[in-house]
């Protein structure tokens, strides 16, 4: 009896102590809301919502006029009526379905710009920059010319000199635009339709570069920071690669697989014309080399059920997707840890470059285009989740990674690839991000849905771990861990895509090197089996690969040639400023290629 009494007393004391502890902490946490007002996140949320970011209630609910609060939706309603009248069939009509939009339809402030766009403007059909980004990738093929040159000298007895190469390059611009060179009576193409088709050369040798016409050259020295240029030139060596860009209209009419065929055909024709070739054995060998030998396509062919050719998003390796990104190319090729230890401001540039790339390119290709468009179709949750990656929020949270690394990692020479070590920093960042959601109700409203929030946490964890260690595998491990952590030990209720997510299988298979099970993260792709397919998780793998590259101070992720090919200033979409292009398209200031106006009746 006595013992029972003691136990009861102890239990009561424990309970009281626990209660007090929790209550005290809660009361204490309110004290820190004032400190939170100094964060850039506060002003971003204030600007986005036009209200106090800490407000727990929306006083304007039901007073905004539903969908009419959005100018774009008003315009859609009007145009929907117009279409219905013109075609005699109902079209877009806000009168059907649920009356959506009593909540605030908040705009998105695109990071790195001062441009606010409405969410509808980020839909891939409304946003021509997103379309052009995909078209620019799909219409690119890279071919090595050394094999062709060797064949010409050894088998055809031709001499290859700088003059002949320049003549060939000039001829190639004509053939890429659909011009005939070797036959008469050919149908040719209106040049205005194909004004975006061209070919340019990449080489790592200064001697070869000096001999070539500068107009046809993607000049590594001019486009990259000297430390990056040096590494890229060393990797490419004295080989000559040609980057062929077929017209946007062609990939829109066929699909990405058209690029290699168009390029091979027109390249062969340019060789025939400029070297005066005849004889089928030489020409067939040339055609073979341009179609198959040392041809770099941007994506692999996918399996039967997907039914897509090469150069289509599902087949892009993650390493290539991160080589399309150019945001880091003006920064010195240094390890992130070194930079963060030295100077927080400088480290912030690296972090912003990383988010520019993964938010503007990886999130768009994977979430919006592959999962939202190719796989699902129609309107997209995926467009909304990608907007998390466009906004300033990720940059803001990453500032803390920099601060923590600057203050607590002074003197650390190298972060080893051990999970126990990396977990410490990842835990801090997850904790900080979760706290941010709890303190800012507006942020939780902005990233509505558990899948949305856990994927932001996953992206932050992936980029932090990869930046510190330089390992993409460690980055992806941190991402899977962070999501599972937020789900199982943090919030528990993480939404339809959060609960049953494949992070459960992604984590154990991660370090396997058997293709289709694990593999290097750079060599995986969007359609990879043992990883998360959830919308919004696209940016995670991009973050792991791109941040690892920046973290270890490399100049490319998977291919130096692909990296240089997308630095080309002649591209319509600017892969260095993807978010700016998307923002410009949102306010109708981005001009894409591939328009049919020159052959349409006046309209």
């Amino acid at each position, binding site marked *: 009896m006595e013992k029972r009494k003691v136990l009861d007393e102890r239990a009561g004391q424990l309970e009281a102590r626990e209660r007090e*502890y929790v209550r*005290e*902490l809660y009361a*204490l*946490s309110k004290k*820190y809301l004032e*400190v939170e007002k*100094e*964060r850039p996140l506060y002003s971003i949320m204030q600007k986005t919502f036009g209200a106090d970011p800490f407000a727990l209630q929306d006083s304007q609910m039901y007073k905004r006029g539903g969908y009419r609060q959005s100018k774009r939706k008003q315009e859609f309603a009007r145009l929907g009526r117009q279409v219905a009248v013109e075609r005699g069939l109902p079209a877009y009509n806000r009168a059907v379905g649920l009356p959506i939009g009593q909540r605030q339809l908040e705009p998105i402030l695109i990071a790195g710009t001062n441009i606010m766009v409405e969410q509808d403007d980020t839909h891939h059909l409304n946003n021509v920059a997103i379309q052009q980004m995909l078209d620019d990738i799909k219409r690119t093929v890279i071919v090595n010319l050394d094999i062709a040159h060797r064949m010409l000298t050894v088998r055809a007895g031709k001499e290859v000199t700088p003059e002949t190469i320049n003549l060939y390059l000039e001829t190639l611009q004509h053939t890429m635009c659909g011009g005939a060179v070797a036959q008469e009576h050919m149908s040719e193409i209106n040049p205005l339709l194909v004004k975006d088709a061209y070919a340019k050369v990449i080489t790592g040798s200064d001697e070869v570069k000096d001999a070539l016409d500068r107009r046809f050259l993607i000049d590594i020295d001019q486009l990259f920071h000297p430390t990056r240029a040096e590494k890229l030139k060393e990797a490419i060596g004295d080989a000559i690669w040609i980057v062929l860009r077929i017209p946007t209209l062609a990939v829109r009419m066929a699909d990405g697989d058209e690029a290699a065929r168009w390029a091979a055909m027109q390249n062969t024709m340019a060789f025939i014309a400029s070297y005066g070739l005849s004889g089928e054995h030489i020409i067939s060998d040339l055609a073979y080399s341009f179609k198959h030998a040392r041809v770099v396509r941007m994506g692999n062919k996918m399996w039967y059920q997907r039914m897509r050719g090469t150069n289509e998003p599902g087949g892009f390796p993650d390493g290539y997707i991160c080589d399309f990104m150019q945001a880091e190319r003006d920064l010195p090729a240094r390890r992130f840890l070194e930079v963060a230890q030295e100077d927080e401001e400088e480290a912030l540039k690296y972090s912003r470059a990383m988010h520019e790339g993964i938010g503007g390119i990886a999130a768009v290709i994977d979430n919006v285009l592959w999962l939202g468009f190719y796989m699902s179709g129609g309107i997209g949750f995926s467009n909304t989740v990608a907007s998390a990656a466009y906004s300033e929020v990720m940059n803001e949270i990453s500032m*803390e990674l920099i*601060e*923590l690394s600057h*203050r*607590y*990692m*002074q*003197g*650390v*020479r*190298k*972060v*080893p*690839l*051990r999970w*126990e*070590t990396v977990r*410490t*920093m990842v*835990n*801090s960042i997850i*904790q*900080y991000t979760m706290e941010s959601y709890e303190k800012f109700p507006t942020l939780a409203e902005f990233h509505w849905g558990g899948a949305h929030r856990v994927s932001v946490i996953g992206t932050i964890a992936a980029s932090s771990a990869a930046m510190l260690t330089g*390992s993409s595998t460690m980055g992806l491990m941190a991402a899977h861990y962070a999501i599972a952590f937020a789900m199982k030990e943090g919030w528990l209720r993480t939404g339809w895509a959060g609960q049953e997510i494949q992070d459960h299988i992604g984590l154990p298979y991660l370090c396997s090197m058997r293709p289709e099970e694990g593999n290097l993260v750079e060599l995986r792709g969007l359609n990879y089996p043992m990883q998360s397919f959830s919308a919004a998780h696209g940016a995670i793998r991009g973050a792991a690969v791109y941040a690892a590259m920046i973290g*270890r101070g490399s100049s490319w992720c998977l291919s130096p040639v692909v990296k240089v090919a997308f630095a080309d200033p002649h591209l319509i979409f600017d892969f260095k400023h993807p978010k700016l292009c998307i923002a410009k398209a949102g306010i109708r200031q981005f001009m894409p290629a591939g328009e049919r106006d020159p052959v349409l009746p006046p309209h």
Partner: protein
Amino acid sequence: MGKLPSLKEMYPKFAEEFEKTKPPSVLERVTPEAPPPPSFCLPRPDGWWRQPPYSKWIQDRGREPTAYELLLDFIIGRAISSPKAMELASSAPSRLIVYEIEHPQRGTEFVRMFLNPTQVIEGPPEEEPDLWIKMNYYDFVPVLGGEISVFNAVYEGRATILGNTTAGLDQYDVMTAILGFEIPRPRCWPRGHP
């Protein structure tokens, strides 16, 4: 036409020469070995605690101090004399921090430290701690001696911490104040953050 010599005759050391032409493996280039531990983290010669600066605050018991004795001497000999450290320790929320210290000869030793109210207790914890730090004895010594930061040991992979990292920052602040350095508290978790 003369008989061509065999490849083996032409290149007697072919295999050896061929090996030399290969670049180092990708794994070797991407993941070089971890740097060796700094000299002050290696086992120390007998009597090290009698040498300055350690002799200023470690009580000489005629043998190497245990982890508990080391931390207790640190608190008594150094922390109590630092007003800034006392102020910081009393402003932090109540925290229980457990050190699991591996000694190469004596094996594992546990020592618990309470922040606010400050207390050092020997032995494994009885209730769930806020933070669990596992490290080598000869990493723990330079941490207390101010030769390295506890976070350096963690981020260089020689120590592991498990639990609430904010508690770690509180502890780090106090230690830094004791050692007389500037206290770097990040904006994200201001001092006293629960």
